[in-house]
């Protein structure tokens, strides 16, 4: 059964230097507060996994937490580039960043394989692109019945996956709804999982389109209201588009970013 913990304790107990860490949330329910807590915890040499390393990973990369990034799309949605990500890839600032690059379909299927206890997944993908030549985790596989050649990608099994959800009950059963992305797969694929939630409630009123993660499939739950800001939590708050715009200026310049970071490290996450 999942433990109910504070965000700070959850991060310190479950995330360690050098871990493979996935913070998921597809535009919706992005675990920003947990990301900031990972920065505060001063974690290093992480292999960060995420389909869409947007602003949350720009912050982690700029703060020097990451040694490697496994991803399929790295941008600031609706705004432009991730300048910290670019600076790390192009100039190794603040530390070199190794990348392992896939497509969304490939990443999604890697999580599915991980959640399914399989070492790999099969899809129609990558053929004819230049990605396969750059990414060793893309290989051809032959159908034993038709002889057709398809593409195999290896399972993703993070040491820890972190997601944000709308609610949990006191037993640690998690409920989320709206765009569900790949969060269920990320949690089920991981050795450990940390779920931040808007609120912990007595009873989880069923919601159409809900995804339920039973308590026994989750390691720890932390109540972090607003934990997905500046992304959104359907039914709780809207996306703060101005903050995404504002990040462009912060991330663009090393000094400005460093000031942002210094300020962050001085401020405790409200929990």
């Amino acid at each position: 059964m999942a433990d109910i913990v504070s965000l700070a304790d959850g991060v310190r107990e479950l995330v360690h230097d050098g871990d493979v860490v996935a913070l998921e949330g597809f535009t919706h329910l992005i675990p920003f507060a947990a990301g900031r807590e990972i920065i505060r915890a001063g974690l290093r040499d992480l292999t960060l996994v995420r389909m869409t390393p947007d602003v949350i990973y720009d912050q982690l990369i700029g703060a020097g937490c990451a040694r490697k990034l496994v991803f399929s799309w790295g941008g600031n949605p609706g705004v432009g580039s991730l300048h910290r990500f670019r600076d790390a890839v192009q100039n190794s600032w603040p530390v070199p960043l190794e990348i392992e690059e896939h497509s969304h379909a490939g990443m999604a299927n890697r999580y599915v394989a991980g959640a399914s206890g399989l070492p790999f997944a099969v899809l129609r993908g990558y053929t004819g692109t230049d990605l396969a030549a750059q990414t060793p985790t893309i290989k051809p596989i032959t159908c034993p019945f038709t002889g057709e050649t398809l593409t195999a990608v290896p399972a993703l099994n993070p040491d820890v996956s972190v997601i944000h959800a709308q609610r949990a009950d006191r037993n640690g059963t998690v409920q989320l709804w709206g765009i569900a992305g790949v969060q269920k797969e990320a949690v089920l694929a991981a050795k450990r999982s940390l779920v931040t939630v808007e609120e912990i409630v007595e009873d989880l009123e069923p919601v159409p389109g809900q995804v339920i993660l039973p308590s026994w499939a989750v390691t720890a739950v932390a109540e972090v209201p607003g934990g997905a800001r500046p992304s959104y939590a359907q039914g709780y708050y809207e996306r703060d588009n101005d903050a995404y715009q504002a990040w462009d200026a912060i991330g663009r310049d090393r000094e400005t970013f460093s000031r942002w970071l210094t300020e962050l490290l001085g401020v405790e996450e409200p929990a």
Partner: protein
Amino acid sequence: MTPTGSADWTADEMMSVAASHALAGVTSCFVGIGLPSTAANLARRTHSPDLVLVYESGTLGSRPTRLPLSIGDGILAETAEAVVSVPEIFNYWLQPGRIDVGFLGAAQIDRFANINTTVIGHDYAEPKVRLPGAGGAPEIAASCGEVIVVVRQSARSFVERVDFVTSVGYGRGPGDRERFGLRGRGPSRVITDKGILEPDPATCELTLTSLHPGVTVAEARESIGWDLRVSPDLTTTPPPTADELTVLRGLTDPEGSR
């Protein structure tokens, strides 16, 4: 519908309207964010009210009341016929070829409609510019019935050969899609701010088939990084109607998007 003159609209507006026209008669469209999303939503608000919009965030049949700001905008889930997981949208809906049209943008596109959204420069490890990457585009380009690309013309974006093939158009020419086992027909139209390019049936090379009103062939060719062929049947793109411009401006106006 009152006729309009090229003074009445911007090149971007003409591009979005032309792109929306390309969706006439289409059942379902897998929508990339940005210009494609604008055009797809314009189509649904004008000539194709039943157009099924599919976004990679897992929303099927969304009817957004405003232009979504990202492919995971909450308005897409709230107005969707169904919301499915990201693995399901790619595996059950895109991969089998259920979606008629894939609607993509591009940072770089080449003579054979291959798309680059990964890196500018020829060294992947030391790129001149690191772009966002593939996202859903490679499989959209591979599996949709056909692909429509919406991109502004510039010598930087229209190149002889893309620095990196993120999403396959026609590879190096006829037969490559079949050789790669790609089941969709590939790019049928590239809609720009100057006109419309279509692959030559024989060579698969992108060819100018339509000019937007007020644009000259010279203007269309000057910003293309290869010797752009002009179709003998070159036509002029129908201008936007006043109604289309009203709807489009309602969609893109920041006030409309709050």
